């Protein structure tokens, strides 16, 4: 069965303390992996798409990387405004739908 698992479920950091969020997937064939950010009371907001192992994308303090089994979202010197839930989703071969992980709730303390 195709699965997407994110870890940790929750992460609390001090402002400026860099860390990484993990998204591991067990799918029959990956067509693409997406990262979204979700603020409380709002819909997910698109961040990145990764298509092949070794690919990297960057946006401000965030960098997403992809291997054959997992993706990491690295956050460098985070600020309180980076606090949100980060969702990972995959598209698998033969399907046309996004399958989401359960998310990582990130809190950055000032």
């Amino acid at each position: 069965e195709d699965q997407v698992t994110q870890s940790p479920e929750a992460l609390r950091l001090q402002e400026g303390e860099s860390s990484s969020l993990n998204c591991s997937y067990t799918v029959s064939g990956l067509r693409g992996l997406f990262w979204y950010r979700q603020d409380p009371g709002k819909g997910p907001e698109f961040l990145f798409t990764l298509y092949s192992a070794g690919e990297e994308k960057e946006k401000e303090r965030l960098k997403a990387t992809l291997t054959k089994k997992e993706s990491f979202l690295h956050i460098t010197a985070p600020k309180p405004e980076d606090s949100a839930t980060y969702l990972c989703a995959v598209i698998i071969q033969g399907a046309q739908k996004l399958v989401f992980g359960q998310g990582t709730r990130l809190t950055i303390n000032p």
Partner: protein
Amino acid sequence: EAGVAQSPRYKIIEKRQSVAFWCNPISGHATLYWYQQILGQGPKLLIQFQNNGVVDDSQLPKDRFSAERLKGVDSTLKIQPAKLEDSAVYLCASSPELWRAFFGQGTRLTVV
């Protein structure tokens, strides 16, 4: 560019009642999705439209949920009758090409 519009933002109903949600996607987006997000979980796809046609509704509880997309634009999602476990946020999303989805703010449904 206007985003995906959803209404209402919040709805409280009693179990066994019916409820409907409305979604207006971004202009020109052919693909429209309805997701259910239970508190603390990731979104789960309920139904996906490509223009007027249904692409995937494998996880839609068809005995109580229904959805339609009129003229390939607006869409409505209906629940009848509602159960307590239907309490969730219902997210509508649209995309200009498959998969890169833009989400609305969602409708928070509470069934009591």
